[in-house]
């Protein structure tokens, strides 16, 4: 009882298990983030098109995904797909699908917003100096859009990483779940373990998310010139 709770962290394979959990968290979030950015950019461009049908469809998709809590989406995909189509998806695959669906919707809306924020005269000036449509996008619109997009996208990425802690509920043992297992296994012998384990998890999340914000700050600086 006199021991510091931190000793729990180094009992057996506990620390390695936390790191393994973190790797699962990272694998799922980065695959989903990759898919979301790619599809989200396409979706954002689609959403900018002034066609009522496309607008209605994308709008419904965005709102539906936004309104539904991610947990409901996870249960829908993990259990619902099995019930409806008799297809078994593993917890990890379900998680990647759900986070991609969610991330694509959010990213799409960010891209749409960024595109809409480019004033019309930017397009018109491009045309006036005789640039082709492709050139206008390549040299004028896209660079400005990306600059608008970076801080918002970083926000979305870190949010996605943090939300992956929900996937424990569909049986994927990620870093937070490993932490809870360690705390619970040590509950009677080391009651103060909770503080140390959650402290470690906090540090791990920070170590993952901080470099991402550093990178974004750097990119913003480079592109300012």
């Amino acid at each position, binding site marked *: 009882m006199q021991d510091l709770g931190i000793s729990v962290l180094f009992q057996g394979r506990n620390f390695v298990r936390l790191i393994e959990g973190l790797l699962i968290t990272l694998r799922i979030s980065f695959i989903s983030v990759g898919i979301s950015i790619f599809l989200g950019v396409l979706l954002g461009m*689609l959403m900018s098109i002034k066609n009522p049908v496309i607008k209605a469809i994308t709008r419904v998709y965005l709102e539906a995904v936004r309104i539904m809590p991610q947990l409901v989406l996870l249960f829908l995909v993990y259990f619902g797909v099995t019930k409806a189509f008799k297809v078994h998806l593993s917890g990890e695959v379900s998680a990647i699908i759900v986070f991609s669906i969610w991330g694509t919707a959010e990213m799409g809306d960010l891209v749409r917003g960024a595109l809409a924020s480019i004033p019309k005269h930017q397009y018109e000036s491009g045309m006036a100096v005789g640039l082709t449509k492709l050139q206008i996008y390549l040299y004028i619109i896209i660079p400005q859009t990306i600059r608008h997009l970076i801080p918002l996208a970083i926000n979305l990425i870190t949010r996605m990483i943090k939300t992956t802690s929900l996937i424990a*509920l*569909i*049986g994927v043992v990620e870093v937070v779940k490993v932490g809870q297992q360690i705390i619970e296994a040590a509950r009677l012998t080391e009651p103060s373990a909770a503080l140390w384990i959650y402290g470690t998890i906090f540090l791990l999340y920070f170590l993952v998310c901080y470099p991402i914000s550093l990178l974004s700050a750097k990119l913003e600086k480079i592109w300012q010139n």
Partner: protein
Amino acid sequence: MRKSGKMVTVTAAILAAGVLALTGCQANANAGGDTAATKTESESKGTARSVQQIKDSGTIKIGVFSDKKPFGYVDENGAYQGYDVYFAERIGKDLGVEVEYVPVEAASRVEYLVTAKVDIILANFTVTKERAEQVDFALPYMKVALGVVSPDGALITEADQLNGKTLIVSKGTTAETYFTENQPEVKLLKFDQYSEAFNALLDGRGDALSTDNTEVLAWAIENNGFTVGIESLGSLDTIAPAVQKGNTELKDWLDNEIKTLGEEEFFHKNYEATLAPVYGEAADPENLVVEAGVVE
């Protein structure tokens, strides 16, 4: 302007096609990345597996808790342990298959069976009427009742001693209903959360606290100066393995297994190995263990 409008539509069409193709690719890629899992799982297709299918596949999937010590938890080496797991290991041994543990949460236990993502749930699953409509329970292997914990200085060993005294309970628990209905003379002090309720007892805001006996027993070990004076009170709830509704074959196999294990007092051995270290000498195994599925 008209020309550019046309161009936009064309681009949109191409993009739409692209998105469709990509989502298709994505699904394929996902399936590819997880072939091993999908392959074994696709055989079952949402319907529960028969005993023979389980034997043929060489593994049985059992849903257990991964953070409920001492029933189902993961030790510091990453291995599953606990009362439920001890039984699960034996099931695997007697079926001659490997056990694949699936960590489940309390709220999703039924869903895992309905969708056949596991063959058996062994996660401290209390038998209730509502649940029995969705899953099939085998014979019980454990029982829980209410327990009452109080300070050593004023230990309460009989329910009658509580009359006129203040009893701490958590809202919505069986303890609250039991005392309201059966012993209205007891003054109840109610809290929303377990932790608040236990803290109130520590602060001396009540004479005793009542909740599931497994909870109070474990808590009393952690907190010196408190003892569980009443270990078993009120209606008995049983805990049993559950299988998918209609999977009679596996249920019958489990029933037989539990009866056979009763002959060698298996669950008492299980108690000694997994629960005794947590509940200590003070607890009586007869208040928790059910042997051969017979509840007195």
